[in-house]
């Protein structure tokens, strides 16, 4: 009898030990195709158990958790301005960046972040909407005379300001310099005024694709991964306007006060490896932020999971990046609130 109890006890103990060797990690990301790509790209191959949760971005929930001292998120997928502000405010832990810091295409934006992918705000259209002459530049996007029809853009200000300036003749590399002067912002809004009556607004990432498919709009701005999926897996006749593409970065960070700090750090290190990043690109047309990961993709072509070349759809190829703008998180951390209020006023009037 005692022996039996002993066996039961030890087996329970060992069970407890095994299960605590890999504490559950709560990984919070944006959901949808992107998180599915993270899941297939590297989370599934992780030894431990990962609870994937979705959120809508922003630092609100993280700040609330950290201030209340009850942090339930271990790893969060964030945008660069969150990476800057969150690190400044002590909401995120500092990370060991030695592994990737010399291997980055851009960034990292702060000491608290590990690389994931580049995604982009890209203009696109349906080929059938323009049987003759096709729009090629962002100028065409803003030219409602030459290419009549509705434009679908997102309800917030990011990227639209940048694109408007390029359409008005500002070189991509001078966009943020221009935006740092009041005249530059006025100029962007003046350009936006020219298409205002032809704009419909979306706020969910799937909408611009539906709007183009249904013919509700003839051109739209969208996340390039969504366009890529529509072309590569749904066989839509969409085409990109790879001009004034605004590249946004995506990072991982660990909220201060997580109960699984050691595990979270291990997981983030794993998620930021070149192999993991290339794994994401296998399932969604976002670009890895590490040069070595991009190499894996290039040499592995056709890399996309259904056996198609993915590089033409990834926003960091040489041809695209020459005419692209890398979004400046510091500018947006400084001016985001002011410009967003102005954008809101512009929209509603």
């Amino acid at each position, binding site marked *: 009898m005692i022996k039996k109890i002993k066996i039961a006890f030890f087996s329970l103990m060992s069970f407890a030990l095994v299960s605590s060797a890999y504490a559950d990690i709560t990984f919070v990301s944006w959901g949808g195709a992107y998180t599915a790509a993270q899941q297939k790209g590297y989370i599934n191959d992780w030894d431990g158990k990962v609870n994937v949760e979705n959120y*809508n*971005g*922003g*630092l*609100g*929930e993280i*700040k609330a958790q950290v201030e209340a001292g009850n942090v339930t998120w271990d790893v969060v997928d964030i945008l660069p301005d969150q990476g800057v*502000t969150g*690190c*400044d*405010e*002590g909401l995120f832990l500092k990370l060991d960046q030695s592994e990737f810091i010399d291997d980055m295409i851009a960034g990292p934006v702060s000491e608290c972040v590990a690389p994931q992918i580049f995604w982009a705000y890209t203009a696109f259209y349906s080929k059938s909407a323009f049987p003759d002459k096709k729009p090629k530049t962002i100028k065409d996007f803003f030219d409602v005379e030459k290419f009549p029809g*509705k434009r679908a853009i997102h*309800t917030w200000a990011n990227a639209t300001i940048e694109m408007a300036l390029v359409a008005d003749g500002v070189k991509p590399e001078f966009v943020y310099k221009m935006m740092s002067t009041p005249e530059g912002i006025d100029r962007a*809004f003046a350009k936006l005024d020219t298409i205002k009556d032809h*704009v*419909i*607004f*979306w*706020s*969910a990432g799937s*909408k611009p694709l539906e*709007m183009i498919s*249904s*013919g*509700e709009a003839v051109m739209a701005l969208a996340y390039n991964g969504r366009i890529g999926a529509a072309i590569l897996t749904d066989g839509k006749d969409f085409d990109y306007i790879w001009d004034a593409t605004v590249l946004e970065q995506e990072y991982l960070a660990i909220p201060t006060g997580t109960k699984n700090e050691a595990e979270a750090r291990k997981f983030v290190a794993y998620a930021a490896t070149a192999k993991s990043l290339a794994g994401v690109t296998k399932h969604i047309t976002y670009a890895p932020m590490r040069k070595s990961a991009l190499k894996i993709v290039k040499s592995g072509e056709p890399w996309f999971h259904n056996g198609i070349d993915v590089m033409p759809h990834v926003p960091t190829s040489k041809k695209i990046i020459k005419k692209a703008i890398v979004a400046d998180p*510091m*500018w947006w*951390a*400084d*001016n*985001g*609130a*002011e410009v*967003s*209020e*102005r954008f*809101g*006023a*512009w*929209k*509603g009037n």
Partner: protein
Amino acid sequence: MSETIKTEILTTDGVPLKDSLKKAERKNKIRATLLVLPLLLFIFFTFIVPIGSMLTRSTDDSYINKVFPKTFEVYKKWDRQGLPPEEVYAAMFLEVKTASGFEIGKASTRMNYAKSGWKSMIKKSKRKFKKIDLNDGPFKEKMIQVDKKWADPQYWLALGVMVDPKTYEYYFNAIDKKYDSEKNVIDQPENRQIYVKTWIKTFKVSILVTFFCLMLGYPIAYLLATLPLKYSNLLMICVLLPFWTSLLVRIVVWMVILQQKGVFNNLMVISGLIADENRWQLMYNQTGTIIVMTQILLPFMVLPLYSVMKTISPNYMRAALNLGASPLHAFWKIYMPNSVPGISAGGMLVFVIAIGYFITPELVGGKDGQMIGNWIGYHLKTTLNWGLSAALGGILLAIMTVLYWVYNKLVGIENIKLG
């Protein structure tokens, strides 16, 4: 005197009956209080404390005063002409250099609300000040070398609004006003004025949604209350079914119906009522917000109306008609007044929910359908300007309280009935 003592009734053990009763009552009272105590505590900790602590943020500016005590002390003596004197620069230098990174980060987020650009300026300075020694004054020129924004009086003037640990600035921001450096209240620049318009819009949409819900909900509730059971049950399911369906699903379905190439517009074009190139814009604007919110909030109107109408005896109407009133007159004089408690309850419920609505305006609001809740959300999540969020929320709460008070004066709160 002696007579009054005599009239006092005593219990068998000689204690005055009054006291004895009181004692017994007290026991009951304590017992009753103990029973509701968990609920009271629950409400206190999950409702009053969080809301209270959030609201205190709307006037709280103490953090920045803790990070820059010396700077603000010398700053207050400055006459706000041109650039501040060296001692202000020196104090600022010292405090930026010696404060921890987190403190400075948090403080710079706050400073950025007052003037865009503080954030990057402080961040850059914090990094570069490391190379300048503390005894290496004067600092004015050196700081300007690090970032030329230190020579821009606009930034220094913006500090003036933060020098007190209590501030009403967020409340003024919430109505498109702000402090100048002398703490006079002035207008925001015109192209940033967004909140007053949004407040008006929020009320307009909420009132319209409440009105449409009443117009649509009243006949439904009437039918529900008067039809024979087997039909009314079916109708009830029709009312409740959408209520049980996911909010997002319903919103997306409305998008399919209302968009320009959607079902409704297609039908209108096919039937020749509108021309193909003049399709109506019913989505991604205020119209869309109102239509979708009306449908989503309809059950909140129907259910209280129904439960009140159920209690109105059909005999009243019959009597009125018997006595020669026209049906319309009978309805207006007899039925309607009896259903007022339901209208009140439904109206209040729909209006209160509508005024703080967030998700529907976010998804279908597009151009001009966004409401104050969307800005509260924006500042909570993106700018982390919780002070402004709290002020917007506080104003919302205050407006609701006033409305409730007015309502109580006009209609009487006892005239609300949820069932």
